[in-house]
């Protein structure tokens, strides 16, 4: 946690990058050889922006994103590159942890387990808190033996202990006068959500604002019902639990007696149970935010009891639980039907706008990319071949691969005699073609393509890696 906090204020100025990946190279050691899954991939994400990474199966788009979370599989090595997140290089120690030792019969991967443990403990504080992930298959990525409510609570209990404590304390501190003020503000329909928020902020009670906001922003309730809920907000915390809550709120961790509390299960239940219950409340609010129907029941259900669309909603609720700055969405809608996909895409778009979260969106579906992204990077065989604003990429694709990919999409609005083709198939990444990896399939390939093409900027923000555009 310290890793990020130290630098949070001084480095993230205006126009700064939230995430900046520089010349990333990831290789996998397999029995057949070393697969260069990602080679020389660089991209930036600004706060609140949606960047799409598009490419075919096995092109390395998922691996590039996994590396940001440091979730690369055991056989994979981040060989080179920098991953700057909010001014911290998450890939700083790669040279220490992973070593490729050459032996007679090939290469052997060696890792320093002590360094790895250190890194893991750092990453745990980043995963979920600062960067969170929505996976493709919500069935395999949710825990099948835990209820949805507990899984969302887990994120909160790991990262948001002070927030939970604040919320409980706030309910005790809020006075009937304050409640009356909020009620009047909501009831007089003139005041906007922003005004209500301002009013609550002036009370100076941390943890109160979000509770009021979560009630007042619900669309499924009438004003009368909302006022009823606001009235019920005031709840005195018991005197014995207040010191405990204050400690948690101030220190962000449990008091020692509770941490080593396995010998005192009653104490543990008494105090931790309070936080767990509050985490459930927040989970319910999160589920309402992602448009889950029948929330009270869903909290107690297991993932297999939910449909695909609902599972993905639960997954997204978990991802936004700790208000991360960046959400990595890895093909979040590929396993869903189009009508459900439309629901989920709309949801992601809404959340992005309300929470101002940056999204790294990975997909193979150009239609989805066109819909949700601000900028797009096209990946082919581990190389980033083109990067542009979404309008520029679709109206004026430059790289021959991008052109081929766009022409191969069957159009929906008309019937055409035959689809565009990219001849051949994706090369093996164990021995990829030298220079431009697309040259074996490229209709414009020349001798020059055997050398690595430079990244050329043809216009503001539009980069292409192709010799065709060099001078």
């Amino acid at each position: 946690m310290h890793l990020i906090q130290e630098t949070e204020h001084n480095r993230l100025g205006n126009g700064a990058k939230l995430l900046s990946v520089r010349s990333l190279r990831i290789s996998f050691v397999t029995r057949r050889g070393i697969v260069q899954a990602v080679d020389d991939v660089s991209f930036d994400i600004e706060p609140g922006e949606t960047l799409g990474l598009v490419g075919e199966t096995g092109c390395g788009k998922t691996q590039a994103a996994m590396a940001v979370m440091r979730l690369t599989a055991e056989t994979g090595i981040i060989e080179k590159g920098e991953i700057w997140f909010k001014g911290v290089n998450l890939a700083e120690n790669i040279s220490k942890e992973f070593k490729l030792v050459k032996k007679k019969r090939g290469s052997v991967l060696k890792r320093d387990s002590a360094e790895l443990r250190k890194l893991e403990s750092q990453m745990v504080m980043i995963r979920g808190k600062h960067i969170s992930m929505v996976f493709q298959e919500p069935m395999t990525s949710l825990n099948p033996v835990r209820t949805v409510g507990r899984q969302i609570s887990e994120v909160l209990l790991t990262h948001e202990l002070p927030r939970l404590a604040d919320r409980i304390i706030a309910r005790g501190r809020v006075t009937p006068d304050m409640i009356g003020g909020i009620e009047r503000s909501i009831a007089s329909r003139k005041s906007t959500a922003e005004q209500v928020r301002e009013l609550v902020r002036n009370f100076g009670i941390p943890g109160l604002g979000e509770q009021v906001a979560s009630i007042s922003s619900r669309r499924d309730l009438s004003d009368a019902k909302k006022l009823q809920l606001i009235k019920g907000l005031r709840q005195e915390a018991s005197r014995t639990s207040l010191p405990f809550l204050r400690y948690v709120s101030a220190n962000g961790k449990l008091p020692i007696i509770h941490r080593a509390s396995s010998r005192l299960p009653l104490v543990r239940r008494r105090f931790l149970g309070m936080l767990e219950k509050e985490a459930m409340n927040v989970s319910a609010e999160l589920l309402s935010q992602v448009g889950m129907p029948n929330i009270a029941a869903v909290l107690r259900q297991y993932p297999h009891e939910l449909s695909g669309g609902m599972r993905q909603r639960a997954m997204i609720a978990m991802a936004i639980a700790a208000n991360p700055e960046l959400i990595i969405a890895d093909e979040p809608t590929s396993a869903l039907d189009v009508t459900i996909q439309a629901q989920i895409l709309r949801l992601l778009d809404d959340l992005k706008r309300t929470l101002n979260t940056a999204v790294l969106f990975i997909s193979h579906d150009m239609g989805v990319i066109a819909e949700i992204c601000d900028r797009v990077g096209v990946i082919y065989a581990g190389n980033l071949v083109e990067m542009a604003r979404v309008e520029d990429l679709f109206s004026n694709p430059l790289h021959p691969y991008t052109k081929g990919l766009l022409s191969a999409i069957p159009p929906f609005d008309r019937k055409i005699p035959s689809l565009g083709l990219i001849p051949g198939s994706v090369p093996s990444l164990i021995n990829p073609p030298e220079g431009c990896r697309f040259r074996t399939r490229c209709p414009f390939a020349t001798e020059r393509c055997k050398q690595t093409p430079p990244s050329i900027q043809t216009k503001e923000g539009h980069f292409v890696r192709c010799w065709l555009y060099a001078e």
Partner: protein
Amino acid sequence: MQSEVIEGKQEGTVLLQTIRLSKHFALKGNKLIGGTKFIRAVDEAEFAIHENQVVGLVGESGCGKTTLGRLILRLLDPTEGTAFFRIPAATLEKYRGLPAGSKEARDIEKEYSIFRLNKKKMREFRKNTQIVFQDPFSSLDPHMSVKDIVAEPLKAHHFNPKSEIEGKVERLLENCGLGEQFLDKLPHELSGGQRQRVAIARALAMSPRLVVLDEPTSALDVSVQAQILNLLKKLKSDLGLSFVFISHHLAVVRQMSDEVFVMYAGQIVEKGQTEVVFNSPAHPYTVALMSAIPIPDPTTQREIILLKGEIPDLSRPPSGCRFHPRCPHALGNCGWSAEEVAVVFFELVSSGQYPEMNDIFLRPVQKIINEQTFEIEMGRKIREGELDTVKRVLEREKENPTSIALRAVKEVTSATDGNTVIRVSLVPPLVPTFTNLGKSHFVACNLYPASSGSYGEKPE
């Protein structure tokens, strides 16, 4: 040309015609309590395939399109209904006129129904029909070489002379774009697209007339998908094949098929020529499905019709039109049950949107009487004017898209016993039947009364 084929059903032979084909899968359950449950995967599907025609079956996962595809190949036996293969149009017409179970009808079924064929005719039928599965990674035997995989159907059907099998296999693979360097490879050495080519070559080995393509490109990347689709188009025009193209990908279906059938929850809801259906979709589900497709063009602003809820549980499908709980245009007679309406009604009461309703229903106890009636026990006498208030609120809420179910309310009365019970009765449901909108475009939806074909909000 295509319209002639459809309009001119009278002439010639119909390659395949299904009659009220249904398949219900039994769920394992306690037979003593509650009886066996059935998943109604396909209900009364009726469609025809003609020579050299591509029929598209579209719908979301679980809508029964794969089950239907397997039924018409007799990979599954139906619960009800039948399917005829290569039946002369005149005979088919005659069969439709005959009462079910009559001797003549049984004779026709014996002759043409794929579920009644004798052993010899069944072999002939198997030669003429083939299937290509969705996942090329699990539909090829990992132990067999490409050569053996493609030769297997030839050997199974005693292809003569044996010496020519090898040459035939090479030609088949050549046709599907695989050179002789692939002959001895094993499936795991091939890419997804190459495997799917092998599966297609295997399906074509016995020169079938009808091939069912069950999501043939869903597991493939776009660029490979384009290759396979172009190959299928070429095969269709070269060999005069008929395809049943099953897919959830509407854009792909539009490129491939001449006629399209839209399925929802086990039923066909709309059918017609591809161009007609895609240019003027009529069923609210088709309209929503088409609006939900992401278009690869960031400059177009399309209006997405977001459907609420999810696909219904097919062991308890909604009554009437199965789409009505999600339909944005549902009418009162679309099949609302008392339970559905009661839920919406009490949500309305408890939302506090109408304080006057809160005053009336302090502690309401609801009781579902039957499919079309529910009662609310008030625990006290109904006061004067209260019924009118309820009626007025309901009338106003009928226009509200979130309480569309209230459109089914026919009348609100006080039940006789002591004036303490309010009874809400509903409009009787009307099961939609196919309405012809012209140009052989059929839709099963109550928005289109049998004679007219007007529907205001057609997209584009």
